[in-house]
C-alpha cells in the first residue's frame, strides 16, 4: 500500500483527507504513483502534471524520506520505505512569497 500526502487544495478537489492510499502493481515510481492517483481520483488530472507534456507543474514538489525527489526522473524506482508504506510520498505546493 502506497501512502500519498496531498496539499490542501487537492484534498478539497478530490474530496479526500490529507493522506490517500494506493495499490500499485509493479515498479513504484513517480509516474506509476501519479498514474494510479489520477485513475483513482480523476479530478486530479492536470493538477499535478501537465496533461499534454506529463511534466510536473513547476510549483509542485515531490518529497519522500526527507529528500526532494522533484528533479529525479519519473521512471526511477522510489525508496523502499515508500514502496513498503513506511514513509509517504508527499506532494507539496512550493513556497511562494508575497
Amino acid at each position, binding site marked *: 500500500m502506497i501512502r500519498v500526502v496531498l496539499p490542501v*487544495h487537492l484534498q478539497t478537489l478530490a474530496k479526500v483527507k490529507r493522506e490517500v492510499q494506493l495499490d500499485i502493481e509493479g515498479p513504484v515510481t513517480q509516474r506509476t504513483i501519479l498514474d494510479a492517483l489520477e485513475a483513482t481520483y480523476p479530478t486530479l488530472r492536470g493538477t499535478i502534471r501537465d*496533461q499534454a507534456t506529463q511534466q510536473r507543474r513547476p510549483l509542485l514538489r515531490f518529497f519522500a524520506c526527507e529528500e526532494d525527489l522533484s528533479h529525479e526522473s519519473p521512471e526511477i524506482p522510489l525508496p523502499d520505505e515508500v514502496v513498503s508504506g513506511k514513509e509517504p510520498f508527499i506532494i507539496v505546493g512550493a513556497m511562494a512569497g508575497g
Partner: protein
Amino acid sequence: MSSVRVLVGTRKGAFILTSDGKRNKWDVSGPHFAGLEIYHLKGSPVNPDRIYASQTSAWFGQIVQRSDDGGQTWEPVGNQFAYHGDPGTHQWYDGTQHPWEFKRIWHFEPSLTDAETVYAGAEDAALFRSNDGGQTWDELPGLRDVKGSLWQPGAGGMCLHTIIQDPSNEQRIFVAISAAGAFRTDDGGQTWRPITRGLLSPYELPDPDADVGHCVHNLAMHPSRPDVLYMQKHWDVMRTDNAGELWHEISGNLPSDFGFPIEVHAHEPETVYVVPIKSDSEHYPPDGKLRVYRSRTGGDEWEALARGLPQSNCYVNILRDAMAVDTLDECGVYFGTTGGQVYASANAGDTWEPIVRDLPAVVSVEVQTLP
C-alpha cells in the same frame, strides 16, 4: 418579483451576491474555492442555474467548475484544453518564435440557445467549445490561422478574453485577444478574419493600422443591434456600425481613453459605460477619483458618474471582465475593483453603493437577472 445574482471572481475565490429587484439589500455567499484564483464565472442564459467557473492556479493549473443549482454546489468537469494538431509557434517577447502553451481560461461564454454548449477563451489565445456541458473541449483552430504566428503576448498574457455571440445569427461570433486584436467568424467558428480596420495603435505597433496586433481590452454589444460593437482598446474607445468592417473613435471628452471594461445599457443601445484609467503605466483612475463615464449618444459625449464613488485617494483598477449590467426595468450596473469593492447602481449609473468593500482583488463580475 425578479431578483439578481452577481457572480464575482477574485484572486482568492468566488463570491455570489444576491438581492431582490430593489437591489438595496444583499446576501453574500463565499468564498467558493477559497484561496484559489477565479478568473471568470458565467451562467447559461438557457438554464441560469448552470454556472461555469474558471479556477486557475500557478500551482495546480486549470480546473473548470460547474454548478447546476445556481452556485450552491459545484463539481469539477473537464479540464483538458488541447490545441488542435501541432499548434506551432507565436511571437515571443524577444522576437523569437515560442510554442503555443495552454495556461488558463479567461472567459466562459455559454451558448444563447443550448444549455450544453459553452465557449471558453484561453491563454495562450485560442477559442474552445464544449457541447457536453464542459466535460470535453475542442478547439476551433481556424482562429489561429489568422496570422497566429505574428501574435505576441502583452503584459497580461496572450489571452482570448472576450466572446460575443450574435443573437440574430448563430454562425457569427466575435472574439478579442490582448495584443492580437478583434476577430469575427461568419461560419460558426470554422474560419475567421480580423476586424480591425479603423483601429490605430501608433504607440504600440510599428505599423499603426496593421490588421493584427492591436491590444483590444474589451468589446460590448447590445443584443438588439448586433452590427454595433463598442470597444475599449488599450488607448481609444471605438465603435463600429457594421460588425467590425470599419471602426471609428468615440473617445470624445473622456478624461482618459485608456481603460479596460466597456458595457452597454440593457435597454438603451446607445448608452455606453466605461471607466477611464489614467494611463497604460498608471492603472488607476485620473486624479484618484473613481468615476464611471456614461454616454447616452453612442459615444463622443460622456458624463461622469461619481455619486457614491470615492472621489479622493482612490487608486484601484477595474479589470476588463469586471463590469456587467442586469436587465431589470431600471437597468442595474455593477463593477468590481482590484481593491476588493463591488459597486452597484440600481439606476443606470446615477448613484452607486458598495455591495461589499473588502473582497480580494476582483477579476470579473457578471450578473444574472432571474425571474
